[in-house]
C-alpha cells in the first residue's frame, strides 16, 4: 500500500490486514511503555488545511508511538493562509524530506491530487477531504465494531452479515462514504437513513439500502446505529427546516434509544451535537462506543502509518522490538 486515499481502493485482505495490525498496536498501547521503534528516523507531516484537533492529535500520537518524527503543519497562520498553493506546500515538504504526509483538506480529492500530481514521493494518508472520504475513521469504526462483537477473538474476522444503519447527513459526510465502502467490503449490510435532501442523487447503484424512517430502522434492531454529525450551516441551505424537526425525525432521542436492543452499539464519529442528532442519554449510555472509537483511532492510525511507511509491510508490526 503506497497511499491511503479512499476505502474504495482497499481489498478485503488489505483491510483485514490493517485491522489485525491495529490489534497488535492496541496491545502496545496497553503496555507501560507505549512505544515501538518501527518508524524511527522517518518523518511524518500532519498537513491540516482544516482545523481538526481530534484527528490531528490522534495521528500525532500514532506516529509518535511508532517513534516517527512528527511535524504539525497547520494552514492557519502559515504560508498557506498567505496564498501558498497545495503544490508549493507539497514541494516544500518534499524538500524537507517528509516520508509520510497526513492531509486534511476542505477540497474533495486534494489528497488524491497530492499523491498523484508528481509533486512528492511521500506516502499520503487522507485524514478527511471535503465531502469525499475519511478512510481512517471508517477503519477505526470497523475495528470498534469487530472488537465489540468478537473481543479478543477479533483477529482475522470480517463483519459478515452485521447490520449497520448510518443516520444523518450522508450527502456531505466523508465518514459515511468511507464506511459504506469499507463495511460492505467486510460483509456488513449497510442501511442509510436520512431526510431525502441529505441523501445523494444517484446512489441507487450503491451496495446499500436507503430509507427515510428512523423509527423503522430502530425497530429493525440493527447491531450498529451510527449517528452522523449535523453541520449547522445545512439549515441555512434548506436541507431541513430546523433543529427541532431534525432532532424529532432523525435524532436518537431517549425514546428511540429505549426501543433499541441492548446489544445495539451506538456510534458517532464526533464531535457530537448533543440534543440534535444524538441525545445525552444515548451518548452516555453503555451502548455508546464514542470513547472506544477515539481510543481505537490511535491503534488504527498506527497500523496505517506502519503499512505505508515501514517498508516491508508483510512483516510483523512488532519486529522492531528486537532491535536494540
Amino acid at each position, binding site marked *: 500500500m503506497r497511499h491511503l486515499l479512499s476505502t474504495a481502493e482497499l481489498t478485503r485482505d488489505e483491510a483485514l490486514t490493517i485491522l489485525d495490525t491495529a490489534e497488535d498496536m492496541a496491545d502496545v498501547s496497553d503496555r507501560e511503555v507505549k512505544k515501538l521503534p518501527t518508524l524511527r528516523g522517518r518523518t511524518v507531516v500532519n498537513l491540516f488545511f482544516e482545523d481538526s484537533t481530534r484527528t490531528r492529535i490522534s495521528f500525532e500520537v500514532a506516529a509518535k508511538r511508532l517513534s516517527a518524527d512528527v511535524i504539525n503543519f497547520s494552514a492557519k497562520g502559515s504560508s498557506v493562509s498567505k496564498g501558498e*498553493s497545495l503544490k508549493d506546500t507539497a514541494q516544500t515538504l518534499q524538500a524537507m524530506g517528509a516520508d509520510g504526509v497526513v492531509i486534511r*483538506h476542505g477540497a*474533495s*480529492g486534494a489528497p488524491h491530487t497530492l499523491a498523484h500530481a508528481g509533486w512528492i514521493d511521500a506516502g499520503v494518508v487522507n485524514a478527511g*477531504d471535503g465531502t469525499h472520504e475519511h478512510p481512517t475513521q471508517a477503519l477505526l469504526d470497523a475495528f470498534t465494531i469487530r472488537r465489540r462483537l468478537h473481543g479478543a477473538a477479533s483477529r482475522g474476522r470480517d463483519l459478515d452479515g452485521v447490520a449497520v444503519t448510518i443516520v444523518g447527513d450522508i450527502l456531505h459526510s*466523508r465518514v459515511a462514504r468511507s464506511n459504506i465502502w469499507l463495511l460492505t467490503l467486510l460483509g456488513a449490510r449497510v442501511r442509510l437513513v436520512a431526510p431525502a435532501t441529505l441523501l445523494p*442523487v444517484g446512489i441507487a447503484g450503491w451496495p446499500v439500502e436507503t430509507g427515510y424512517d428512523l423509527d423503522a430502522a430502530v425497530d429493525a434492531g440493527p447491531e450498529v446505529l451510527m449517528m452522523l454529525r449535523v453541520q449547522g450551516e445545512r439549515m441555512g441551505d434548506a436541507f431541513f427546516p430546523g433543529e427541532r424537526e431534525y432532532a424529532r425525525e432523525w435524532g436518537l432521542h431517549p425514546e428511540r434509544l429505549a426501543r433499541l436492543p441492548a446489544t445495539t452499539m451506538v456510534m458517532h464519529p464526533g464531535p457530537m451535537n448533543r440534543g440534535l442528532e444524538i441525545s445525552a442519554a444515548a451518548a452516555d449510555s453503555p451502548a455508546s462506543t464514542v470513547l472506544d472509537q477515539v481510543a481505537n483511532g490511535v491503534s488504527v492510525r498506527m497500523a496505517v502509518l506502519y503499512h505505508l511507511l515501514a517498508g516491508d509491510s508483510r512483516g510483523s508490526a512488532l519486529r522492531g522490538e528486537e532491535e536494540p
Partner: protein
Amino acid sequence: MNVLIQGATLPDGRRADLAIADGVFVEPAELGAPERTVDAAGLIALPGLVDLHTHLREPGFEQSETVLTGTRAAASGGYTAVFAMANTDPVQDTAGVVEQVQALGERAGYATVRPIGAVTVGLRGERLAEIGAMAASRARVRVFSDDGMCVHDPLLMRRALEYVKSFGGVVAQHAQDPRLTAGAQMNEGELSARLGLAGWPAVAEESIIARDVLLAEHVGARLHVCHVSTAGAVEVIRWAKARGIAVTAEATPHHLLLTEHEAEGYDPRYKVNPPLRAAEDVEALRAGLADGTIDIVATDHAPHPAEAKECAWPEAANGMVGLESALSVVQAAMVETGLLDWADVARVMSRTPARIGGLRGYGEAFAIGAPAHLALADPAARTTFSPASLHGRSGNSPYLGRELPGRVVHVFHGGVPTVADGELRPAPGDRESSEGAA
C-alpha cells in the same frame, strides 16, 4: 499572392483544384502562373472554420491568452474566424471595448475576430448593457452573451431577446441556473456522489433552456444556446424546433467526446463549465448534431494559466482550450462514427456558425469572388496531441497525450497563408512570433 491548390477533396467528395488571387477564390483556369502551388492530394478542403464561442481573454487576462495568441491557436486549428466572448476585464459591454477587441484582431491577422457583446452591464445580470451602441459601433456586434454567467432573471432575458431584434442580433445564452449550481463541481449523479464533488444537475441547464425557448417564442425572437451538454437539453431544443421556435444550439467538441468519468482522477484539466456529462448525454449530443437539433460545434476555448489547474479539483478554474483540437475531435466523435460526413462538418463548423453570427463570406464554400478562407486537413493522419500541438498561451487541454485523428495542414485567411505544411506562419501583424520563418 496567387495560389493554386491542386487535387483537393471537396467536402462533397469531388476532387478539384482551387485557386486564390488577391485574397479571393478565382477560377483555376483564370489564375495564370501561380506564385505558389499546394499539392492537396489526400487533403480535405474545408471552408475556413468559424468558432462562435472563443475566450480570447484580452483585455484583462493576458496571462491566459491574448487576441494575438488566441488567434494563433485558432489558425493552427483551421479556423479563420472566431467570436470573442465578452467576459474580459473590462467586460465587453461598451462600444469602446468591443472596438478595441475588433482592432486587436485586425492587427493580429491570423483570423477574423468578431467581438461578442455582453447582455448585461459587467455580466452582473442586473441591467442591459449598451447593446445598441455596440451594434452600431465599428465592431458591428450581432451576438450578445453573458457567457460564464447565465442571464437568469427571466424579465431581463425577455427584454434582451426583444431588444436585439431591432438590428437582427441574437442572444447566446449560457444556460445554468445559478441557484441549482451553487458550488457545483461536476455532473450530478452516482459518480459525483462517490467522489464527494458537489453535483451540477442537468436540470439546471435544461430548465433555463426550456424557459428561454418559450420566451423566444413569446416575443418572436432568435435564441442561441451555448454549449448544450445534456440529453434532456437536446430533447427540449428538438421540441422547440418542431414547434417552429427560432432557436439554434451549439455543442462543444469535448462534450461530444469526453464523459464525466474523466473526473475520477481529480485531474482539473477535465473541469469545465458545463461539466462533462454521462455517456448517454454524449450519445444524445452526437445524435442531436447529426439530426440538426444541434446546429453547430463551438469550442468554448477557455485558456487558463497553469496555476489555475495545478491544484485540488474544487479550487481549479473551469475550462479547456479547444481551438487546436476541435477538428480532430469532431472527426473522432462524428465522422469516424459515421454520424457526419465532411459536408456536414463544413456546415456545422463553418457555414452555420457564420450565419448565426451574421458573418459574411461563408455562405457558399469556395465561391468564386468570395474571400479565400480555407482549411486543408489530412484525415488519414493520426497524431498524439502534445504541448507542441498548442499555439495559444495556455496548456489546459484535456487531450494532451491522447491520439487524435486528422491534422490541419494548410490554412488561408483571406488568401493569406496562416498555416503551411502543418506549421503556423507568422501573420503580418505578429511581431512576437518565433514560430517559423517570415
